[in-house]
């Protein structure tokens, strides 16, 4: 029983149009009309503020994982003072289980470029940076081509559409660090420094890139801006869950028959996503667990999933989060100990090493997990792992320590019997 009418949903981010990544195909399908209207239609869009208000009322919850209202974030930018202001677009999607932005880069780069331009105008930004993870070499090249095409078409650059608004657009390649997807360390990386997250406050809106006001948005978030401008905030709010509205890119991976990225309304029931959208479990196996939004979101047992939908409220009830909506589906054959070890390995590898609890804690977690995985663990190690997670949580500059600690905490508590079965039996007889 579905509460969401997803079967009749028409995709807007990655619609089924051939060669949409080419600028003329995109423009033939109404592309860049919103951008033109924002700049030239003075009746509808009287000033940048009107764009901010429209986006704010659409309640686009940031699609990068934190879920903050994008328009509200824009309104934190201080008034323009004539100096440079920046929009940094976060395309460094590196979290295991998350692979949605690449679909936008690949199939519809111009909807993102248009959204970024609208956002830039709304915040009176002078330069846009799009930070793409280094492993996406092909998409970096595609993005560069798409941006060049837009430049050639007079959509970016000096005095766009004859107005006095000018903006520059740059692509910046990451160098293989997960931490550079954290917004402040992305700024450090853009400045050419080591990707160490910054201490907040000051927040990027006050002091961002090179000490200037900066807003950081996810690629998908900015792509939605285009739809909001074209179709209106009310249309956007009418799609999907009420408190987390709009279309959502679901990246479904794991033991399903048809893994992939699906654009559907938010608030999809998880079981419908698995069984109908993704074609059901592979080889007819039984569902065991789901990680709903990338590896840092706590894993959920199959028996918890009845009626759970993909929106922040419903997921909070079962003790997890929406994250990036990159779902990892696991069948009954999955070894949760191996799975958790692999996640701890990832965070150990990716911790930037700035804060003590994360630098040494992630390594400790992995090493103890390896011991348990190899059958050399003891029951006390499980309690140690849980203790280490409390020692790490909330004590670091950025959220990577939390992201590393949550999966450990929740996988052990939700699948404790499996972990205990892998541990050595105590040699001491219990009286």
């Amino acid at each position: 029983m579905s509460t969401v009418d997803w079967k009749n949903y028409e995709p807007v981010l990655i619609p089924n149009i051939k060669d949409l990544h080419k600028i003329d195909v995109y423009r033939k399908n109404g592309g860049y009309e919103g951008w033109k209207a924002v700049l030239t239609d003075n009746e509808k869009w009287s000033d940048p503020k009107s764009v901010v208000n429209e986006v704010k009322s659409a309640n686009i919850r940031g699609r990068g994982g934190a879920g903050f209202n994008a328009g509200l974030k824009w309104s934190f930018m201080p008034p323009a003072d004539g100096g440079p202001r920046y929009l940094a677009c976060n395309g460094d999607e590196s979290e295991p289980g998350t692979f949605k932005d690449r679909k936008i880069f690949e199939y519809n780069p111009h909807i993102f470029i248009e959204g970024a331009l609208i956002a830039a105008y709304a915040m009176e930004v002078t330069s846009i940076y799009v930070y793409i993870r280094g492993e996406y070499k092909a998409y970096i090249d595609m993005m560069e081509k798409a941006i060049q095409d837009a430049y050639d078409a007079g959509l970016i650059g000096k005095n766009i559409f004859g107005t006095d608004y000018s903006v520059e657009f740059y692509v910046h390649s990451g160098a293989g660090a997960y931490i550079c997807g954290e917004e402040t360390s992305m700024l450090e990386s853009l400045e050419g420094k080591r990707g160490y997250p910054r201490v907040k406050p000051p927040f990027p809106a006050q002091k961002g890139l090179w000490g200037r006001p900066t807003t950081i948005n996810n690629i998908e978030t900015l792509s939605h801006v285009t739809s909001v401008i074209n179709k209106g905030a009310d249309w956007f709010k009418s799609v999907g869950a009420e408190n987390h509205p709009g279309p959502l890119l679901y990246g479904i991976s794991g033991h399903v028959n048809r893994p992939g990225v699906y654009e559907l309304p938010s608030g999809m029931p998880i079981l419908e996503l698995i069984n109908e959208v993704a074609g059901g479990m592979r080889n007819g196996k039984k569902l065991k667990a789901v990680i709903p939004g990338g590896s840092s979101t706590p894993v959920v047992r199959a028996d918890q999933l009845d009626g759970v939908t993909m929106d922040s409220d419903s997921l909070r009830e079962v003790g997890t989060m929406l994250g990036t909506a990159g779902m990892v589906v696991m069948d009954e054959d999955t070894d949760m100990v191996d799975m958790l070890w692999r996640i701890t390995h990832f965070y150990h590898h990716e911790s930037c090493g700035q804060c003590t609890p994360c630098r040494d804690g992630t390594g400790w977690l992995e090493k103890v997990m390896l011991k348990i995985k190899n059958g050399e663990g003891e029951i006390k190690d499980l309690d140690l792992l849980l203790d280490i997670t409390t020692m790490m949580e909330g004590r670091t500059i950025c959220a990577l320590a939390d992201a590393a600690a949550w999966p450990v905490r929740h996988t052990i508590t939700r699948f404790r019997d499996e972990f205990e079965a892998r541990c050595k039996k105590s040699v001491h007889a219990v009286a």
Partner: protein
Amino acid sequence: MPEVFIDGKRFEYDGDQRLLQFIQDKGLEVPFFCYHPSLSAPANCRQCLVKVGQPVKDRETGEYELDEDGNRVIRWFPKLQTSCNTMISDGMVVHTQETDDLVKRAQKDTLEFILINHPLDCPICDQAGECPLQIQTYKYGPEGSRFEVKKVHKPKRVQLGPRVILDAERCINCTRCVRFTDEISETHQLTITSRGDKNYPATAPGMEFDDAYSLNTVDICPVGALTSADFRFRARVWEMNQTPSIDITNSKGTNIDLWTRDNLVLRITPRFNEAVNNHWMPDEGREAYHLFNENRISKPLQKLDEGQTKSSWNNAFATVAEQLEDVSKDDVLLIGSSHASVEENYMLSKFASILGYNTPVFSSHIEEGKSDGFLLTDDVAPNANGCRLLGFKEVSGDELSKSVSSAKVILLLNDNVVDRGVINKDHLSNSFVISFATNHTDTTRNADLVIPITCVAEHAASYVNIDGRIQRSFPAKETKYTNRRLDFEMNEGRLDRYGTNFDNWVTEENKIDCLPFWIVINKISEEMGLDDFTFQSGREIMDEISSSVTPFEGVSYAKMDEESGIVIQKEKQTV
């Protein structure tokens, strides 16, 4: 006055203040590693976590909201805050490890994390004894470790530069060294390399850490990761005496500490003085300890035929008196020294005025291009301004050569005029040269009589730096004639107090047979039948200077100690 409550105690404060610094200034304690008062606060060690709250104010009236007991309602930050980068605000309530168990637990946890990959090789680590990690682990750390798996291994004994060696395993990644090269010396030579628990400080590939201030990173390193190539494995800190002193390798007057053991100065570290050198000193000044230990003149030397032979003190004093007796007063040349203290130069000038000789001259020691606008100066002598303020005539090399050639007897206070090229050694051959010096040099080798005097490490004396600031040294090592336990200027270390003469670190070898210059003058004048010179210490001389030489009015050792130096010359003289 805005107020802040720390562990229930009320304090008033002024201006923008970092919470951690404020807590320290009030004599309270919160453990920390990465914070340094002169560097930025990156808040990365997470050791100084405290619980912070703000009182809730009524939006309309601006009054504090009160609970039913009449206490202010406090809104606590959801997470513990690092006190190093938290700015104090009015009404802030802070709970440290003294009053909050969660804070105590958080600090213990951080230390447990730091220690899991730390090699715990304190018994062979140079930092042991002065190691913040060691001290804070004893105070705030866990009882043991629950870490039963393998530690991370990283490079050891990495020669980062000519003077600094890195042990990456000991490093706790506080980034103080990196921030030092970024913010203080501005050479940007260090960075952190690699990621997570594998990271450690390094230079760019193929580059050397040859910063002129590189050894400061060793001082500020809170563990034994960065060690001095020179001092490594030389001594344990608790076996040394730490004596305040002044850098004599240039005219900046950098405040330093001399670390001595068995009357050898083993290392020099900077001492905090906000008005002069802050926490820092150039690497060059740290080499000066060789001058105090090596190549010292012990016992007077007299020229006989070709070479110099050791002579008795009595013979030396008698020789000086004899030489001065038969010569006309204008044929005596007294040369003061910018390398000697105010007290020594004053003794020379008093000697001249009582015996009717010309006022001493001096030649300043300038090496063009040495200055870097920070702590290095072109003037490489510590006391040129002191000589000027005493009224000495500053002469050029040519003038000095001329007057040296025409003099019959020359009294030369500790200045190596030959080696530094002010005069040629042949100029000295026409006269009887009496050199009062600390070290063997070409100048002393060409003197007819060499009388060894104490160096800055052996006496209390003052120096006027390039900015007209007078500061003084303390005796750090004993001579043949002094005794640490009898001299109230000298401090006693652990070994002095608890060691015995039979301990293997006690030898007599390192005591130099030399006397303070004022004692030498006392003896010479006694030999000449004068009774004007009875000075026993630098303190007495300074008291006389302050009452007789105008610029030094009001200067005393007590005042210098209290105010860490006194500015006596307002406008800067051109050097």
